[in-house]
């Protein structure tokens, strides 16, 4: 395990209705809300959910050495044979690459080497951007399930979909274990196993532009919600706000992206991908969202 990982423990506290289990995973605060009768039942469910979150983190985090992502990223151009779950995720990433006209690209993580979204005014030069952009492009690699061959200087990063995938995966595990209504929330991306019993709906606060302040409440009875946004990560230069949403085709931040897009969908993965694709459309985010079947809340 990497030294940057926070301690792996869970805490349980009682709420007005039910229980709240909390832990840290994938760099985010994670929560399980459940309507169990007892604290010990809530603890058991939280342990299940946390175990799945930590499993996904360990397996797919690009920060950890020895996992499948590390093997791919350090293969130096050699083909890497991957397991079924990784293959499913790579298939999915491949589909998204197609659907997004190459704007969703799991090889784009290296662009962070020149873009540091810390609220400062430090912009990279076009030369720096071009240099790193040469190492971006899913099609430069060769994915033939179950083998991925990536050029030596390229990397993949599943951070753009890992959290949403982990939420859905945890929900499936919970459904297999209990009928107790639960809500799984990993850093603001969330899904429910079903409607709560003690009230009409799960009440979910969506964080607005101001950090930590929910200014919109959504009642969720089934399905999932995911939010993409740059409330906290951006660059400011000469009055221009550069969102942390980078376009892998240009190497530059997407212009005029909304501050945040929240999408409701059947699964957290769908909600997360629709909101991410909408952010990547920048000024046209709402046009894109209007064409989709999903409900959305867009903030500029």
């Amino acid at each position, binding site marked *: 395990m990497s030294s940057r990982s926070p301690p792996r423990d869970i805490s349980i506290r009682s709420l007005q209705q039910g229980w709240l289990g909390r832990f840290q995973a994938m760099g985010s605060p994670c929560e399980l809300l459940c309507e169990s009768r007892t604290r010990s039942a809530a603890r058991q469910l939280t342990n299940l959910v946390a175990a799945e979150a930590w499993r996904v983190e360990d397996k797919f985090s690009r920060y950890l050495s020895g996992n499948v992502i590390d093997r791919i990223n350090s293969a130096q151009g050699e083909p890497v044979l991957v397991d079924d779950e990784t293959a499913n995720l790579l298939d*999915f990433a491949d589909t998204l690459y197609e659907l997004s006209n190459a704007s969703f690209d799991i090889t784009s993580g290296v662009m962070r080497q020149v873009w540091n979204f810390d609220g400062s005014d430090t912009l990279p030069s076009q030369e720096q951007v071009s240099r790193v952009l040469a190492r971006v492009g899913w099609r430069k690699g060769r994915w033939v399930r179950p083998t991925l061959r990536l050029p030596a200087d390229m990397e993949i990063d599943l951070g753009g979909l890992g959290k949403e995938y982990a939420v859905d995966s945890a929900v499936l595990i919970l459904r297999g274990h209990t009928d107790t209504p639960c809500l799984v929330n990993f850093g603001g991306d969330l899904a429910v196993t*079903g409607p709560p019993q003690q009230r009409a*709906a799960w009440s979910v606060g969506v964080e607005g532009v101001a950090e930590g302040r*929910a200014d919109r409440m959504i009642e969720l009875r089934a*399905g999932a919600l995911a939010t993409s946004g740059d409330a906290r990560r951006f660059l400011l230069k000469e009055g221009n706000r550069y969102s942390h949403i980078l376009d892998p085709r240009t190497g530059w931040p997407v212009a005029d992206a909304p501050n945040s897009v929240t999408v409701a969908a059947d699964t957290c993965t*769908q909600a997360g991908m629709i909101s991410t694709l909408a952010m990547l459309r920048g000024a046209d985010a709402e046009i894109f969202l209007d*064409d*989709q079947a999903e*409900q959305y809340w867009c903030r500029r």
Partner: protein
Amino acid sequence: MAVVAIEMARTRKNEQFISVALATATCTLLGSGLPTPVDAQEEPSWNINTAAFYYGEDGGRVQDFSIKAIAERMFVDDRVLTLGLAIDALTGATPSGAIRLDVPQTLTQPSGNATKTVPAGEYPLDDTFRDIRVALTVNWQQPFGDTNLFNVGASLSKEYDYLHVGLNAKVARNFNKRNTTLSAGIAIARDQIDPEGGIPTPFSSMLDVGDLSNRLGTDSKDILDVVVGVSQVVSRNLVVQANYSYSYSDGYLNDPYRILSIGDSVSGDTIPRTPPPGVEGPSHEYIFESRPVERTKHSFYTQAKYYMNGKVLDASYRYMTDDWNIDSHTVNLRYRWPLGASKFLEPHLRLYSQNEAEFYRLSLVDGAALPAHASTDYRLGNFDAITLGAKYGWKTRSDNDMSIRVEWYQQSGSVPANLIIGNQAGRNNYPDLNALIVQFSYRFSR
């Protein structure tokens, strides 16, 4: 199917099929069956309660038309902002405090610049009473931890001769798996009284028109209220509550418009007087009331709510005692009776009884030493009251709540025999009161 959808998404400029293709791809990724369809909607952020209210006393006495609005903004974690606005239009007459006589009586109006003559046998009423009151309230509720709820609020109300400013705070704490709640609250207020013509000196005589020599200008009172309470969930059906409240008022507690007749020690009839020639003034001797400058009240309140298959019985009792020697008892009963899924009928019965304040008088006696304090205010007298009515509520087609409440209020009192002198015995000395209350309410969200 995924491939087909992707092709369609790529070829269709409007990208309508991306979410379809994504749904299919997600299904494959998660290796699950079809997920439950999403069911999400944005919560309304404001709950707004509006009401139009009418209170009307018979015999041309007080009429109050008011509109009220309470807007409630819910935030996550049970934080709630509540804003209230009420506008009242008051008209009508209130008893001035003078007794009835078998002859006409002329009284100087509270403003001090006109007189009014009351026919023989009638209650001298003060009908100059006409006012608009605007009241604003703001409250913030904030949970602390999982078991503590904190409330702070402020209130402001203004009418022609009155300004009220108040602050309040309350804390509640849950115990025992939320079955027990302890609460404590405090409120402070300052009321500024600035009556037409100025406040009359207590126990000063009603003067002729134009003579304001007994007027003091403005005055104020401070009020402190403290309440501590406990509520307990006894069973699935029964919730009980008890609280004690302490209220202390300090300052100007008089009604600046209320007078007492000075009666003959034998006949009880008010002593006549004649204003100087060419001057309008009172036909009899009257003096302005005088109450103590402090009042301490203690109230004990208990309430039980009993839930039976959607029906709710709400019963409460309050006992109040104060250092003006008033004891009062209030019983309140409400029964909520559902009529189908979206309508209800709620009958209401309230019974009230109090004895008179130690300084309550029907009149004062000519030539006798003045008591320390005296007031004829019928609200400080010995009386019983009953409120009987019902509320009918229903859901509108847009799922908002509407209700209409109609109630009838009757107050009847009596003056203790030892306060009645001579001819006063043959008259009805306590101004009985009947009132109609109608309220229409509408609650919606936006």
